[in-house]
């Protein structure tokens, strides 16, 4: 038997690799050190303090939308940071909800067998995706919302709502003493519904009896809390906005900056989500649908039990990255002056303190933190829904 002698694998040159890496470390370290020395030099020349002591200094500038108490004369830069961060999170949370709803609707519309519907949805996606988001934000803000009539000739919408170029003025709900009973009843109803659903599904597994729970659900979630609410004396009132001479008094105001940003972000991200959804649904082989039909499932059940669960596995990872994009894109708020994290912190605070390095580092750290946490959750989800290969 002839023994095949393999030639020795080519010798690696470990010293060359090591030298390359060492050189890289030295160069990066040198650049960092040089940057540090220059920054210290430049900052001391410009008389700018360093460190994070500014965090507790009084801010002294006003912010147009604050979810927590904030006053320019007493609140600190740190407080301003939290105000900005909360505003970013608010717009991100609402934007994600709206973009998801709209994106799923458009993505499914693109797959419709109705020619008109699918092409209308396709046209929307192409139009929105190919125009820069910043342009869309400016359009909604300057050309639509700021072009609304001024205070004197506001639109009076039904329900005591006013719309003018200063924003949308809504009635502000005022909760009376017994309102928490109604809320508790609602929570109770939701919990009972979940329990009912689990029970009927177990019963279906056991006996095959289909779970028909809709009337019970309506009774538990809608009727029961309403009855409790009215028994407690309907403790909910609204303070309606009223037209003052120079301003609208009372009510809740939605700033045009907020509305424009929310609108543009949701519409823009929805177009991308629609593509994600379409790709996800198309990724489920048609054989799955046919198999479900062969088993006698109706088209609704086919979608709900067979297609959607499989599509979701493909949809969720790119969907998350769209959510991250939305969060990052919300920083474009700075262009129209919505007080988000970047506008308040990397804008106003940076301009007042001049501490560019610290301020930008904190701002970036926040976005990095959000990104990392989201990817972590994403990975957990991926493990949860991944196919268990046999």
């Amino acid at each position: 038997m002839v023994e095949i002698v393999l030639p020795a694998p080519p010798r690696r040159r470990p010293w060359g690799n090591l030298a390359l890496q060492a050189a890289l470390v030295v160069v990066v370290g040198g650049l960092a050190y040089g940057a540090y020395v220059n920054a210290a030099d430049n900052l001391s020349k410009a008389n700018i303090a360093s460190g994070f002591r500014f965090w507790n200094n009084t801010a002294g500038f006003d912010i147009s939308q604050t979810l927590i108490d904030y006053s320019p004369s007493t609140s600190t830069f740190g407080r301003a940071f939290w105000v900005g961060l909360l505003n970013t999170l608010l717009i991100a949370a609402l934007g994600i909800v709206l973009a998801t709803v709209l994106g799923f609707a458009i993505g499914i519309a693109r797959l419709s067998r109705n020619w008109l519907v699918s092409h209308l949805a396709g046209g929307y996606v192409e139009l929105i995706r190919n125009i820069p988001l910043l342009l869309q934000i400016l359009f909604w803000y300057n050309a639509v919302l700021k072009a609304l009539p001024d205070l004197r000739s506001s639109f009076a919408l039904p329900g005591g709502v006013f719309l003018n170029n200063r924003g949308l003025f809504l009635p502000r709900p005022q909760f009376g003493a017994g309102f928490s009973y109604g809320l508790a009843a609602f929570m109770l109803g939701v919990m009972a519904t979940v329990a009912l659903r689990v029970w009927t599904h177990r019963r279906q597994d056991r006996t095959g009896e289909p779970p028909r729970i809709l009337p019970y659900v309506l009774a538990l979630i809608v009727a029961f809390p309403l009855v409790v609410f009215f028994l407690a004396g309907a403790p909910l009132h609204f303070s309606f906005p009223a037209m003052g001479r120079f301003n609208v008094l009372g009510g809740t105001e939605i700033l045009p900056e907020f509305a424009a940003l929310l609108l543009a972000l949701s519409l823009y991200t929805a177009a991308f989500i629609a593509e994600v959804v379409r790709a996800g649904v198309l990724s489920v082989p048609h054989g799955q649908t046919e198999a479900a039909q062969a088993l006698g499932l109706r088209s609704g059940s086919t979608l709900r039990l067979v297609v959607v669960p499989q599509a979701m596995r493909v949809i969720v990872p790119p969907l998350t990255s769209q959510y991250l994009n939305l969060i990052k894109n919300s920083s474009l708020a700075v262009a129209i002056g919505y007080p988000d994290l970047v506008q308040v912190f990397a804008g106003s605070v940076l301009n007042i303190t001049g501490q560019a390095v610290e301020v930008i580092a904190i701002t970036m750290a926040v976005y990095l933190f959000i990104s990392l946490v989201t990817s972590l959750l994403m990975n957990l989800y991926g493990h949860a829904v991944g196919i268990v290969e046999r």
Partner: protein
Amino acid sequence: MAAAEKIYLRQTPAAPLPPPATRAGILGWMRANLFSSPLNIALTIVCAGFILWVAPQLLRFFIFDAVWSGADRQACLASPQHPDVGACWAFIRVWSSYFVYGFYPAADRWRVDLFFFALAFGIVWVAWLGAPRRGLGAVYLFVVLPVLSYVLLSGLPLLGLENVPTTQWGGILVTIVVATVGIAASLPLGILLALGRRSAMPAVRFFSVIFIEFVRGVPLITVLFMASVMLPLFVPDRFSPDKLVRALIGVALFASAYMAEVVRGGLVSISRGQYEAAQALGLPYWRMMGLVILPQALQVTLPNIVNTFIGLFKDTTLVFIVGIFDFLRTIEAARGDPHWITPVTSVTGYAFAALFYFVCCYGMSRYARNVEARLARAHRR
């Protein structure tokens, strides 16, 4: 005789009947695609109603009622003889050279035109898959053109081209410069970073991963802020770079991190056998990558690369926020011109900008789709 007359024998085949009108042709198509079920009928009616409601308004606003010429805002204001004013295209016409060149000196604008032409030539050379000597085209685009553009745009007094400071650049010129520099820098940097991320050397891998994940985790606007506010702090005073250069650095670094991930996707898709075959031939690392792996990886991922370019092109608008006069910023500046303030000026300006970006981005995405279809054809056996 009488019996023979009664024999009937058909001599020619009967002409085929037309298909039932409800199954074929335009009616059949409508039945299948628009009116197949009650739900579809309802959807069709709603959509058709929507289109019939919106389309005429858009056409009226942008074409029929639009003002095509005029000297100032009076032309675009509603008047008794012209009660419905549409888009004010006259405004765009008057400001058009500002939108293209910014404050670039009028006498030197031929240099910008020449730059546009040289760029378009290079792009067609490389992007047209049937063009001759595309390798040479790439050299032209990535080596010759940058030098040529720098000389043309910034000026070289030796050649009699006067220096034009970047503060005078603006409009589409700046948008194109930012986009092309971003693209030209991000592709090689992205390839290096992608290779670094898959490298066997821990230090190289570490720095690549940190850079890519850091940049992808933060918004572009913070990177631009960093480039425009922090970069001047990090270098000695006398080297403090030009404002436009700072933004270019920010955009290029940002885009290269995204490009790295796209290229990495291409590298991952190349089967191990290709690496092993190249190593079996005794190719050292760089020749293995340059001759075997990268050509395949880049071709597979070309549509994604173009999509990254589209994203980058749209992202160039963000330099607006750090005070650079790109196309969008010139629109913003012009629409505030008191000579032209009318209720329709803003809408017209934004519509014009949207048209420009849409044409560029849609063109690129169609190109990516064509290449994708071609690749799919090549893989189909």
